[in-house]
């Protein structure tokens, strides 16, 4: 299944992450750019005393307000004739130092409060956090102003003020992480080994919250530089003759109209400094916080990308099928690895028929079913081969608009978890009428009437009332009935049901199955029923296709498959089903694990787990053999009638 394929990729990368952090950071070109600029600025600022610069504080009234690019004064001079380039370098030194110190102070006290609150929990936690909440109830800059008002203007006071108002950010972030960590086993183990609370906090917990502290620092330092510059700009920070970038900007403002460069240049320097810090900080966060790493947060587009190497000219729809999937190949491309989730799948559905698709997690059954209407998330999924015929139309060559018209009208879906598949913020009525109105030109009230009838059809009591409720107000079984009603809204010819009963209680499962069975007979709809449960198969399916490692390995009627499985895998799978009243029946799980679909063997994918495997099984791909009318198996040594594997 999709989830399995997707989640296995980051796991493989995690092991290699630690030593690669720096390389990963450098791979991010924006972060690298930010880092280079930042280092350059910092080096120049540090080297200021050794650079051949004019004295930043020496006034020269004769040279006042010289424009940029003047001889001897590359960036011009200010109102007192001081060299702006030199003042910028020295001012950057002050701004950087103040920003860094404020960050360190805020990080120290904020992290300390967060660590203690999170570790101590209970009353200490609530007292500390209420205090933090109180500080956060103030608009950020206003509180800093109030503090400066009390302490009096001055660079050091501005630094304290900015540090204090940033403490809550650290305290909150660190407290959250610490709270989670202090309930973990390694903390209990440390406590049992007799370590004191202080030891545990600083030796066991602190190293684990360090990344969060660094992330918070790297994302707040830019702010702090901006805000201290702001206070200086207002005349509340650095006082003359001391100057940081903000106070230079503030002084320049008075002569904005006559000599704009005096204020424009320091502002530009602040922008460059803060932007390089933010770029670098974002890079650091991406590396340290794996959840935000690129590729994880990709947005699936409206329809699965179709990227067939060659047009499947040889494939023609079979006459008797409403839906005919042939040689379907769907892949996931993740970080340079290709996962062949569906590797040539054939499925066909006659009118009014229910075909069960059975297999373990990761066998490709959901991916195959979701590929049909292009609902496999893409990126990373893409359909690379095969065809799916709905009547005469090949779904993979249709326009997006045509697919939209078919979705929900000719082919509808019922998904696994009815809570997450219904939109939490819209009423049942809204969601149902919307499904109807997407395909019919009728009024809203007519659609609402149809929606009410649909709810009646799926045996929901008080349908008119239920239209007004939200999904979370219903039980799981009720929600799934709603989903089925939605799938029936436009008399679909084919319903694709992806494990519709898996998330439900057993009794509710039985109700939903019998409802689906009745409705398909009433409406003569074909169902593609994906499940891993043979009990469900026997309850509703006419025919079964068994899937393994992205391929169909056996098809036949439900009775044939259940009574005389031909593929050793099917036989094993059926053996795994517990039967009431037969406790002595062996319930051995199939040994080994299914192969990863990014690394499939040349021959039979089941050979490694198969008791009947022989040398020829591994030699070459196995083709499908028809062993009876409508019954085929992908095996060189099928299980014979009565044989036990």
């Amino acid at each position, binding site marked *: 299944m999709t989830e399995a394929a997707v989640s296995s990729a980051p796991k493989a990368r995690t092991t290699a992450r630690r030593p690669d952090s720096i390389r990963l950071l450098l791979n991010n070109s924006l972060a690298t750019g930010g880092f280079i600029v930042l280092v350059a600025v910092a080096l120049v600022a540090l080297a200021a005393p050794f650079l051949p610069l004019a004295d930043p504080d020496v006034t020269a009234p004769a040279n006042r307000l010289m424009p940029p690019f003047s001889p001897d004064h590359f960036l011009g001079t200010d109102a007192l004739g001081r060299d702006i380039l030199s003042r910028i370098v020295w001012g950057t030194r002050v701004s950087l130092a103040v920003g860094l110190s404020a960050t360190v102070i805020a990080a120290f006290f904020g992290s300390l409060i967060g660590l203690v609150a999170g570790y101590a929990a209970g009353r200490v936690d609530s007292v500390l956090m209420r205090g933090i909440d*109180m*500080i956060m*109830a*103030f*608009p950020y*800059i*206003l*509180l800093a*102003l*109030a503090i*400066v*008002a*009390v*302490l009096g*203007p001055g660079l050091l006071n501005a630094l304290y003020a900015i540090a204090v108002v940033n403490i809550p950010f650290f305290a909150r972030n660190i407290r959250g992480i610490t709270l989670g960590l202090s309930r973990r086993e390694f903390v209990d183990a440390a406590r049992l080994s007799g370590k004191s609370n202080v030891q545990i906090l600083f030796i066991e917990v602190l190293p684990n919250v360090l990344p969060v502290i660094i992330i918070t620092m790297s994302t707040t330092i*830019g702010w702090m530089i901006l805000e201290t510059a*702001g206070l200086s*700009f*207002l005349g*509340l920070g650095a006082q003359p003759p001391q100057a940081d970038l903000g106070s230079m*900007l503030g002084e320049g*403002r008075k002569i*904005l*109209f006559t000599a704009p460069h005096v*204020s424009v240049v320091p*502002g530009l320097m602040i*922008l460059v400094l*803060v*932007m390089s810090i*933010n*770029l670098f900080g974002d890079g650091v966060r991406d590396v340290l916080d794996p959840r935000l790493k690129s590729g994880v*947060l*990709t*947005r*699936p587009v*409206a*329809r699965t990308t179709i990227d067939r190497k060659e047009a499947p000219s040889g494939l023609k729809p079979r006459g008797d099928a409403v839906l005919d999937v042939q040689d379907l190949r769907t892949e996931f491309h993740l970080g340079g690895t290709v996962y062949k989730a569906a590797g040539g799948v054939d499925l066909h559905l006659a009118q009014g028929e229910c075909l069960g698709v059975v297999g373990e997690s990761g066998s490709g059954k959901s991916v195959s079913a979701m590929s049909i*209407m292009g609902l496999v998330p893409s990126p990373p999924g893409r359909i690379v081969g095969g065809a799916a015929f709905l009547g005469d139309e090949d779904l993979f060559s249709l326009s997006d608009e045509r697919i*939209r*018209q*078919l*979705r*929900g009208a000719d082919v*509808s*879906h019922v*998904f696994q*978890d009815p809570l*997450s*598949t*219904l*939109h*939490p*913020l*819209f009423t049942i009525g809204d969601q149902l009428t*919307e*499904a109807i109105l*997407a*395909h019919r030109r009728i009024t809203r009230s007519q659609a609402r009437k149809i929606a009410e009838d649909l709810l009646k059809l799926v045996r929901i009591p008080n349908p008119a009332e239920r239209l007004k409720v939200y999904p*979370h107000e219903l039980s799981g079984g009720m929600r799934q009935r709603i*989903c089925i009603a939605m799938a029936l809204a436009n008399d679909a010819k084919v319903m694709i049901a992806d494990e519709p009963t898996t998330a439900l209680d057993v009794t509710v499962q039985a109700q939903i199955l019998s409802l689906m069975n009745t409705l398909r007979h009433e409406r003569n709809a074909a169902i593609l029923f994906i499940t891993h449960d043979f009990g469900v198969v026997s309850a509703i399916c006419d025919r079964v296709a068994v899937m393994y490692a992205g391929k169909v390995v056996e098809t036949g009627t439900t009775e044939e498959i259940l009574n005389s499985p031909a593929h050793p895998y099917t036989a094993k799978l059926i053996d795994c089903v517990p039967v009431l009243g037969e406790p002595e029946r062996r319930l051995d799980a199939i040994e080994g694990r299914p192969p990863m679909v990014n690394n499939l063997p040349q021959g039979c994918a089941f050979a490694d787990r198969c008791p009947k495997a022989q040398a020829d099984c591994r030699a070459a791909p196995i083709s499908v053999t028809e062993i009876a009318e409508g019954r085929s198996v992908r095996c060189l040594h099928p299980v014979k009638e009565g044989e036990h594997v």
Partner: protein
Amino acid sequence: MAGYILKRLIAAIPVLFGLTIIVFLIMAMIPGDTATAILGSYATPENVEKLNRDLGLDKSLPQQYFIWLGNLLQGDMGRSYSLNRPVLDEVVERFSATMILAGTSLVLCSIFGLLAGVVSAVRQFGWTDKIITFLVLIGISTPSFWLGLLLILAFAVKLQLFPASGMFAIYGGGDLPDLIHHLVLPALTLSVVATGVIARLTRTSMLEVLRQDYIRTARAKGLAERKVIAKHAFKAALVNVIPVIGIQAGFVMGGAVYIETVFQWPGIGSMLVTAISTRDLLLVQGGVLFVAAAYVLFNLAADVVQTMLDPRLR
């Protein structure tokens, strides 16, 4: 819903009291003797003692607080010594100017931020996304007071499209078009940073939402992609963004301090800066308290809107 709003309003009362305590404490923590500071060169021992008695500074701290709070509840915030008028009158006058500026900015940053975030997410990895992401980065890294100066240079001095300062024209102004004319530059400047923050969060939130199962359901129903994005995904993303817009209200009101100074907007921000320089602490106290209370109410409004959008929170 009305019951919920009432409940939230009642829950806000202790927070508002908490604010008064903090504001009071900050002012009480002033190093040195307040009376001496106020009197400056007139600080003879008799004057200091008299002023201490007048200000109630000879009483204990809790006593002082309750006296102060009692006066506050009666609308008496003291008298500004630098302006020689009641603090409340001055603050109320200034507060409305700040609300006009901050309110406009908040509306602008919500519209632009949400729009940019949604477009960026929908065009993920495309050129539009890259450009928006970069602009957002510049936006949140730009000192707003500097940006204000640049806009004055460009639009007031060079192009002469908008006035450089003030809230109304000195001669013949005073009507709404005049106000809007004066409002454009400061409101835009003030909204830039918040726009960036909201755009970033909206983008992430949209990307998160677009991966959800219910989006797949909406597509499986055959809804047009435009509707999937604008209705299903946007509403879910908005629920996450609304609280942040509430928080941005605080940043916008705080940022108004700079912008009001740059554009000489007669709001609380510029009043505070002057009051701090003249050490008119009662005025500072009144201003801070008003803005902080407004911030609490903004956040409350954000909570209420979020609850209206999300039935699960009711």
